[in-house]
C-alpha cells in the first residue's frame, strides 16, 4: 500500500484507504474514488495527478493524492 502520489503514469491501482477529514473522504467517494475502486493513473509527472476509468477523469492536487492509499493491480 502506498500513497497515490507515488504511483506511476499508466499504472492501474486499487484504492485501499482514504485519509483526511469526513468532508474530503465523502467528496472523493461521491466523485468515484472510494475504497475498492480501480483506476488508471493517467498522468503523474511530479505535478498534479490525473486518474481515470471508463467515463470519468479526475484531477487531484499533490496534497490530495498523498491522502489516498492505493495498491497496484495487474490487469
Amino acid at each position, binding site marked *: 500500500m502506498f500513497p497515490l502520489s507515488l504511483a506511476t503514469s499508466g499504472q492501474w491501482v486499487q484504492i485501499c484507504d482514504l485519509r483526511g477529514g469526513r*468532508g474530503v473522504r465523502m467528496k472523493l467517494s461521491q466523485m468515484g474514488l472510494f*475504497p*475498492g475502486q480501480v483506476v488508471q493513473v493517467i498522468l503523474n*509527472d511530479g505535478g*498534479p495527478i490525473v486518474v481515470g476509468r*471508463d467515463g470519468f*477523469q479526475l484531477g487531484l492536487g499533490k*496534497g490530495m493524492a498523498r491522502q489516498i492509499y492505493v495498491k497496484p493491480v495487474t490487469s
Partner: protein
Amino acid sequence: MVMQKGMTVALAGNPNSGKTSIFNALTGARQHVGNWPGVTVERKEGHFTYAGVHVTVVDLPGIYGLTSYSLDERIARDFLLHGKPDLVVAVVDTTNLERNLYLVLQLLELGVPVVLDLNMMDEIARKGIEIDTVALGQALGVRVVTTVANQEEGIEALKEAIVESEQHHPAPTFKLDYGPPVEEEITRLQNMLERSTNLDGYSSRWMAIKLLEGDPEAQRQLKGQPQEEEIMSTVMAATVRLEGRLEDGDIEMALVERRYGFLNGLAKAIIRRKTGMERRLDISERIDRIVLNKYLGIPIFLTLLWGAFQLIFTLGGPVADLVDAFFTWLGEASAKGILALGAPEWAASLVADGIIGGIGSVLVFLPNILLLFLVIAILEDSGYMARAAFVMDRLMHALGLHGKSFIPLILGFGCNVPAIMATRTLSSEKDRILTILINPFISCSARLPIYVLFAGAFFAQAQGLIIFSLYVLGIIVAIGTALLFRRLFFAHEIAPLVMELPPYRLPSVRSVLIHMWERSRLFLTKAGTIIAITVILVWALASLPPGVEYASEASLIGGLGRLLAPLLAPAGFGFWQAAVALFFGILAKEVVVGTLGTLYGGEATLTVAIQSAFTPVSAYAFMVMSLIYIPCIATIGAIRREAGWRWALLSVTYSLLLGWLLAVIIFQLGQLLRLA
C-alpha cells in the same frame, strides 16, 4: 373551461452529465434565471406544456451526492425536501453509469419520485456497450428513458414519462439493504423517529441513515425536538456498536462502500460490452498528457491567454472605433434635430452631452467585452478551463490560494460580479472569502475605458505597454493582498484539490453564443440603467442651480468636487472634475469616463481637456487610483451577498486606502524624479 393541470419537476445530475442540454431541450427559450433563496447560486426555471399538462422545470445545481458538505448539495437537498417537486428527473451520463447512479441511489433513499434519464446514449453505442434498461428500471423501481440531449433525441419520450408520472404517482419502492448489523440499527432508530419526531418531509429511513452517518444537517433537524436527547443517545450507542462490528470501524465509509457494491453488481448485470473493444487511451487523455505536463502546462496556458488578449484587442479595436463614430454622429445629429424642433438649448445638451455622450462613451467597449466573454465561453465549453485551474494549482498554492481560485480570477478580467459568484465552487469557506476579496483588484473590462482614454491622451507612443502595466499592477496587488490576508485572517491549510476533468469537446456555436450573451447582458443592462441614470444625474448637478454655467465650478457638482478635491491633491489630481468622476465611478467604473465626458463636453473635446488638466505622471496616478480605489457598487453588493457585510466593509476601506496611497506614492515619486 378545462382546468390546466400543473406540475413541478426538478432536474438533478452530476456536473457534466448533460443536464443543462436536457434543460434547454425540454424548455427551449422559455427560461427564467433567478437566485436560490439566500444565496447567489443561479436558479434556472423553465416551462413546457405536454398533453395539456403545464410543467415547470427547475434546474438543480450539478452535484455528486446529497451530503451537507457543499453549498450546491445543500441547495439541491433543500429544494428536494422543502420545494416539494412532483418528480425528480435524474440525468445520468451513461458512459459513467456507476458513479452517476450513486446520486440516483441517494435520491431514491430520500424518498422522492424519480424518472431516470440515461443520457449520452450515442457515446455508449459508439463504445460498443449495450445496456438492459428494462432490468435497470426494475432493479431501481423507476421508469427509464434514454436520450441524446445535444441532438434532442428522446426528448418527447422524456416529456411523456414526466407527464405520465403525474397520473401514476410512482411511490419509490427502492430500498438498499445495508446488511444485518446496520439494518438492525436503522430499524431501531426509524421506530423511535416515527413515534416522536416531526420529520418535516424527511423519510424516517433517510433520517435514520443520515443520523448514523453523523450528518450535521440531520442533527440540526433534530434540534429542539421533544425526544432529541433520547434519539441522540440511541444514535451514539448504535455508533459504538457498529464501529465494533464493522471491518474498518467507519460507518459512513461502510455505507458508501455498500452503495457502490450494490451499483457494481447492478452494472455487471445490465451492461454488456461487445468484445474486441478494449479500453485505450482516448483523445482527451492524450491531450492531457501534453496540456497538463509538468513543464509544458504553464507555457501552453500563458500562450493561450496571450492569444486570447490579442484576439480581444486587435479584433475588438476596429469595431469599437465604428461604435464610437456612430455615437459621435448620433450625438451631433440628435442635438441638431432637437434644436430644429424648437426645443431649448438645455434639452439638446441633455440628450447630446448627457445621455448619448455618457452612454456612448461606455458602449464603445461592448465589442471588446463581447469578445472577452466569447473567449471565456470557448475556454469553458471546450473543457480547457478546468485544466487551467489544475495547471495553476501549484503556483496558486505558493500564493496562498487554491487551484480553483484561478477561474474566478480569470473571469474577473471580464466583470468582477460573476467572478465573485463563481467562487462558490470552492468548498472551503476561507479559501472562498479570500478569493472574493482579491477579485476586485483584477482589472475588469469596465476599467478599460479609463486606461484607453488616459493612455491615449498621454502615452500615445506606448499605449499598449501602459495599459498592460495596469493589468499587471492589479495582479500584483491581488497577490500581495492574498499573501497579507492569508497571514492576517485565514491562517490554515489550503483545502486539497480534486476536480473533474470533463472530456475535451468542440464547443457548439449555439451554447457558446448563449453563454457569451448571458454574461454580456449584465454589461448592457448596466449601461442602460445605473450608467444612464448616473450620467443624467451628473448632467443635472452640473446644470444646477439654474442659470449657472454648465459644468462650471459654481454648479452643484462643482461644489461637491471642491469638497473632495483637497484629499486628492497629494496624488496630483486635486481638481474638482477628477474628484467628481471618481466619486460617481463608485456606481460603475465606466462612469469615470462618462462623467469626465459629460463635464468636459463630450468625447470630441475630452482628450484635449484632460491633456491640459493632467500631467503624464498625474494621469498615471489617476489610472492607478481608478484601478484600485474601490470596488463598484455591484461588486460591493456581490461581496456582501457572498461573504457578508464585514468583509464587504473591509474590502471597501482597504482598497480606498491602498488606492489613494499608491496614487500618492506614484505622483510624489514622479515629481521627485522630474526635479532630479
